[in-house]
């Protein structure tokens, strides 16, 4: 099988799994809270509904408002082509490494924030301002965690980082690795808008960040943005899963290996989703000005990860 077919295949798998992941987390949270909850495939039904609905656009909005969902969606899908979802020798590995992934996601956030400002609603402005604050403060942590990982391998290339852990399994429990995992986990909470940073199911004006930016969207645009948010969650989870515990990822591109890779990916996603569901059920949302404390804590974890790598060379 040609390696070039792998990239679109990864993209397709990601697109298919992402809403299911969101649905699974919601279902698990509901069960933990002793509620019936909607079935795990609910987001698929929601997407289908949204695509069929009418689109209403604010009279104050410009072309940017209608273009932004495509850019956000496009950047999220492009990222899925670059991360080691299924196989490790990535065909596009020479095009983008971990830094490209992080900054492509920031591109999506940038345009989403602009789209929040466009209709001129104060909610959009508030969401945009808060989102950019959180994103800006999460950047140093992400960078240091990436460098803690990269330094051991000598490169920020995702395929190489995953291969290194595959070839020396004891590396997975190295203190630097574990700390980097913890740091990236906290950043995941911040970047994907999960508790305690942002509540994905709230619509109270004082508590929303992501929801506030997309308040004016409807129909197909909203569908694209929701799908992109689910993809972002999937990407972060796959980074956490496949960089730190890459077993199951295919090293040869045969249908059997790829199928096995997809199955292990789904399992890792469910496991991480379970952890997130537990965390969200137990913790209350932090007020916005306590979020920098959380991000400082994750920065310190990343710093310790880099230090641990120094100490063990």
């Amino acid at each position, binding site marked *: 099988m040609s390696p070039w077919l792998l990239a679109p295949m990864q993209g397709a798998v990601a697109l298919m799994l992402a809403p299911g992941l969101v649905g699974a987390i919601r279902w698990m949270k509901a069960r933990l809270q002793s509620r019936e909850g909607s079935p795990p495939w609910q987001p698929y039904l929601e997407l289908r509904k949204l695509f069929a609905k009418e689109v209403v656009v604010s009279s104050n909005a410009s072309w940017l408002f209608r273009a932004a969902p495509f850019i956000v969606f496009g950047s999220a899908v492009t990222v899925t082509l670059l991360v080691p979802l299924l196989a490790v020798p990535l065909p596009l590995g020479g095009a983008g490494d971990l830094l490209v992934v992080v900054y492509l996601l920031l591109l999506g956030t940038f345009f989403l924030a602009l789209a929040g400002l466009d209709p001129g609603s104060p909610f959009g402005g508030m969401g945009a301002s808060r989102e950019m604050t959180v994103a800006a403060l999460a950047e140093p942590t992400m960078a240091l965690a990436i460098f803690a990982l990269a330094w051991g391998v000598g490169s920020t290339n995702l395929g190489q980082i995953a291969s290194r852990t595959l070839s020396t399994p004891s590396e997975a429990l190295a203190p630097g690795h574990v700390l980097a995992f913890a740091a990236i986990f906290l950043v995941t909470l911040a970047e994907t808008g999960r508790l305690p940073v942002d509540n994905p199911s709230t619509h109270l004006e004082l508590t929303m960040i992501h929801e506030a930016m997309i308040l004016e969207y409807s129909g197909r645009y909203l569908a694209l943005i929701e799908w992109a948010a689910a993809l972002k969650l999937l990407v972060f989870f796959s980074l956490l899963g496949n960089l730190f515990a890459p077993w199951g990822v295919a090293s040869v591109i045969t249908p059997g290996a790829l199928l096995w890779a997809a199955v292990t990916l789904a399992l890792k996603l469910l496991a991480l989703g379970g952890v997130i569901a537990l965390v969200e059920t137990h913790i209350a949302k932090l007020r916005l000005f306590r979020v920098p404390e959380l991000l400082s804590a994750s*920065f310190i974890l990343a*710093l310790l990860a880099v230090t641990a790598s120094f*100490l063990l060379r």
Partner: protein
Amino acid sequence: MVSQLSVGGSTLVLLGGLMMLWRRGVAAHIGAFTFQSVALAATMAMVGWFAGDWQLWAVAAALLLVKGIGIPLLLKRMERRFGSERELEPYVNTATSLLIGGLLVLLAYIVTAPLVSVSRLPTRTGMPLAIGLVFVSLFIIISRKKALTQVLGFLMLENGIALLAVLGTHGIPIIVEIGVFLDVALGFIVMQVFVYQIHETFESIDVEQLNRLRE
């Protein structure tokens, strides 16, 4: 293998100290101290296993009993008597404290590098983190306002020194360790008396109130 475990253990111990900077509330602080002492006992036991030194096991057990169980119980009792007052903001806010903590760890790394290069033991890799804990504990003592938190900072300082000793020399003679324990216990009792007196005089254990003694 030993190096990795010693770095891992020291990191957990240091994280206990950093948790003091992050969480607010004396209950959380006592929890951080308990976590740190347990991690320290585990690290000592691990070093004892690899060095084949049963004395370290004994010290680890004593540490667990005294600092992992005994002192937290005593502190919780103290907290129940005095802790009903409001949260006090530290001198430096949380995010900045964490960043300063991080910088102190980096400083410790720079300062300890010559020491690490001289030692031949496999556990030497964790030493900079132990010195980092010493610096962070000193920072906790000077930047927090509640006397209980300062006592905890002092106890963490002890932990840091013990960790450094274990990693740097694979344990210290048990006589010395007992002597150190007695020292700590005495210091602790003295501090308890002080905290009680402070509370009696000022109806609060805010150490800033001691400034009023000048008048």
